[in-house]
């Protein structure tokens, strides 16, 4: 073709570049499989999510009904239950 030495050098250059790309791809693959590994990280992520959620929900004041309020509610329900729409 053109220059024997030149074409061999360019071929070697291309081969080196290809090998570099394959090596980089392998490295990225290990990064991804490390990041997406099931066992360790997942439990951590779930507990992290759960604690965040718990924090958000705990900001609501939970108001428990007193016994009087419970009886009142039950009375209203039963009253309604036995009444029928005409």
């Amino acid at each position: 073709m053109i220059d024997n030495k030149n074409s061999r050098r360019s071929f070697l250059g291309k081969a080196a570049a290809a090998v570099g790309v394959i090596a980089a791809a392998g490295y990225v693959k290990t990064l991804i499989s490390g990041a997406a590994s099931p066992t360790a990280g997942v439990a951590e992520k779930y507990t992290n999510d759960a604690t965040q959620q718990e924090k958000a929900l705990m900001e609501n004041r939970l108001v428990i009904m007193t016994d009087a309020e419970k009886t009142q509610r039950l009375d209203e329900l039963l009253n309604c239950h036995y009444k029928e729409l005409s």
Partner: protein
Amino acid sequence: MSEENNVKMEESADLDKGRRDFLKYVCTSSAAALVVASESSAAAVEAADDSDAEMTVTEFFQGHFVLMSDEEKKQAIARLEKRYTAKYGKKTTVSDVAAPEGVLFGYALDISKCIGCRRCVHACVEENNQSREGSVIQWIQVMKIPKGNLSFSADKLENGYPEKSQFGDYGVQVGGNAYSPAGLTTEGAQSYYQDETVPDKDFFYMPVQCQQCEKPPCVKACPVRATFRDHAGVVLIDYNWCIGCRMCQLACPYQARRFNWGEPSLPAEEMNPKTHYFGNRPRMRGVMEKCTFCVQRTREGRNPACLEACPVGARKFGNLLDPESDVRKVLATKRVFRFKEEYGTYPKFFYYIG
């Protein structure tokens, strides 16, 4: 030219021969599978081993269950029973009992009685073999909605925009005291509460599951008709036909459908072995599932698991065509409404204030 024609004819003859061989292979292998399946279903538990727990090629190529002949249905059921028995180590039955004639199933839920205990959620999960660890799938979602009497106060009367000083005494255009959600609205609904005791005085609870619409948008959207409405009114899914495109989940206005994003994890000791083909049989990765009104129970005249678990009796189920059923009585005498009825889906899940 004539040479080309001869070549073409030879090629097509080869193809025909290839096709005949393939068909012969498929027929003999499925006939053999038939024989093997009928023999082995009786001795399923003893002969179970790991290879039986995998899906067979014949199961992979089975068609839509509703379109199968009776013989094909029997074979499909036998295959599934064998596979589930091998996988979970329990004698599993997969029923394909049909919906009863002259029945239209309906549900009614009293939101004044619901205390948000979520026993229905867990009973449903125990009955219907959902994925437990990893992906936790729950078909019923209970919304904890603030009652709406929390945010009124006199010093908020002038809050809003534009501010009062800009327009003198003409008052605010947007804002003021009642500018927050109140009553039955999904705005501000919390579905993932973890209260230790229920009910919370300032909230009321509204469980949502598949509303079994009469005009289901999910059925219309499914490209392969894997989800369909049976003649008892229940919207069902053929799990072996679903391709996992999730068009139905896009279409559902009630967020009722659940997808198996990963391989469902169901411990064998928690598995319910009495299953139905369209109901609670264990699903596989990549298919949709949802509440079926416990089709394995209701087609045999029993009540759904959520109804039996409710401690306050807020749930009612029955045949809408029978005027003496609980649901009909509720519809006749109580203040009933449908959830999101503006979508025109005509659900058979009615909410009422008892």
